[in-house]
């Protein structure tokens, strides 16, 4: 009887898994953008997107593994099939839409913000630091301020601290804990700037089936409110929800 049971569950798993029965879905992330995604002290991927991704995989009945990669090559590596999704705080933009497919957003259009050492830091004519290759870097280049680009988000913050730049421009949710824990050293400057169309999971154009599954799973999480709970858990009560 026991053997029979095991056999039945195995068949069920096979049927429901269909195309992905043998294939695990590899989730690609950067692992350097807390609280969205980071490597925790055990050396594992952790953060909002880890928890979200695991929940989505559960709802879509997929087996998922996590892979980290450099931000610079995160899209080419998806294109050549080294992993199947990008879930790395990547904003949905027109440029990216041309080469990728996005699911519906799992995070509302995020505000970007300037942070500096004083509230009157010059953000229109001064020097502003941003991470290279982000939508924020593009925005600064167009804003008239002098753009100073660094390879990692960490370095952009360090640049303001040591006076290289007047302000740093990044996702507000990334800057919020830094500002609040700096003991008054950092402060937000000026108005928040809404950029991009929210954050979605990036997939290859041809992976329509997989995109459908994630879309449905995100929708179900939006409907039953678990997504909002998760956002509040990681980003605090003031964070924008759906």
């Amino acid at each position, binding site marked *: 009887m026991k053997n029979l049971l095991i056999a039945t569950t195995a068949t069920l798993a096979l049927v429901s898994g269909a195309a992905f029965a043998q294939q695990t879905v590899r989730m690609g992330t950067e692992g350097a953008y807390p609280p969205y995604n980071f490597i925790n002290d055990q050396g594992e991927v952790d953060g909002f997107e880890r928890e979200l991704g695991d929940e989505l995989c559960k709802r879509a009945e997929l087996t998922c593994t996590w892979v980290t990669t450099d931000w610079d090559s995160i899209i080419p590596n998806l294109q050549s099939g080294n992993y199947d999704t990008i879930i790395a705080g990547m904003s949905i933009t027109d440029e990216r839409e041309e080469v990728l497919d996005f699911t519906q957003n799992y995070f509302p259009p995020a505000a970007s913000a300037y942070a500096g050492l004083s509230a009157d830091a010059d953000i229109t004519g001064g020097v502003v630091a941003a991470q290279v290759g982000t939508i924020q870097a593009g925005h600064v280049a167009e804003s008239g301020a002098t753009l100073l680009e660094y390879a990692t988000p*960490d370095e952009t913050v360090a640049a303001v601290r040591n006076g290289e730049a007047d302000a740093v421009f990044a996702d507000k949710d990334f800057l919020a804990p830094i500002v609040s824990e700096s003991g008054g050293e950092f402060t937000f400057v000026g108005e928040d700037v809404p950029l991009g169309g929210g954050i979605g999971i990036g997939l290859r154009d041809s992976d329509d089936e997989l995109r459908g599954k994630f879309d449905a799973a995100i929708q179900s999480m939006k409907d039953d409110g678990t997504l909002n709970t998760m956002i509040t858990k990681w980003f605090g009560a003031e964070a924008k929800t759906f």
Partner: protein
Amino acid sequence: MFASCADPSLLSGLDWLACYLTSGKHLDFYRSFGTVLILLAVTAPVALAFGFAGALAARSQLGLVSILGRGYMAMVRGVPDIVFFLFFVIALDQGIEWLTHQVRCPDWTEPIRNGLEFRVCPQAKVPPGAAPQSVHSLYGFGLAVVTFAIVFGAFAANVLLGAMNAVPRAQIETALAYGMSERQATRRVLIPQMWIYALPGLSNLWLILIKATPLLFLLGVRDVVYWARELGGSKTSAYEYPHPDWRLYYFLGLLVFYLLMTRISELVLARISARLSRGQATMAGEAMRKAGATA
């Protein structure tokens, strides 16, 4: 690691530091030193093999083979290795998958290249999609080794070619006069004699290889630089061990590691050189003979 580390926020001072330095992430960091050493140990012979093939090809009587060998050396050596690393690994990965695709899925009708997308049939994925992460890491490491070997092979080929040309021509002519074939002369006379001429160049190359390993993280391998950056960066309270920007200390640690590696290599290479020079008709060999005679 220790039971007392369960809640780091309660710790302070040395206890905190002890727990911090033995966190899972730090253990990964310490292991990555092993990764670097393994890479060096594996890459050196593979690069030497590439260099050997390149040098022999360049010396070949066949025009086409010779052009291939010389082209390899000139192209790879003309390009900064960092540029090479940035696109070559993806190209290599796609090349391998394209080949397996041709073998395993000959009936596949959909295009492999679709815009920027590269798509082979699922059976041709290397490594297979369902393989555990360790296999993927191993594959990534393998790609890194091959890439390093191709770059350093070109330099090794150049050194070996110079060394082969330095072996007195008369030696080979004598071998041929004794009725050896071109191949026999190469294998029995040329190759055994060339090592002493190649050693200075190869030692230099080894020292450069050691210093090129920080580029591993470009190839997607989590090496010492990756971890030093990751661990050193400032940590907010999302982490168990929040701290400010400590990258400077981590990089100073790396500096010591590389200086040590260089020093040890220099000492070992000096020994090898002394041993190889013994009884050789070179200046160093002559100096040894004289020193022995006067003593």
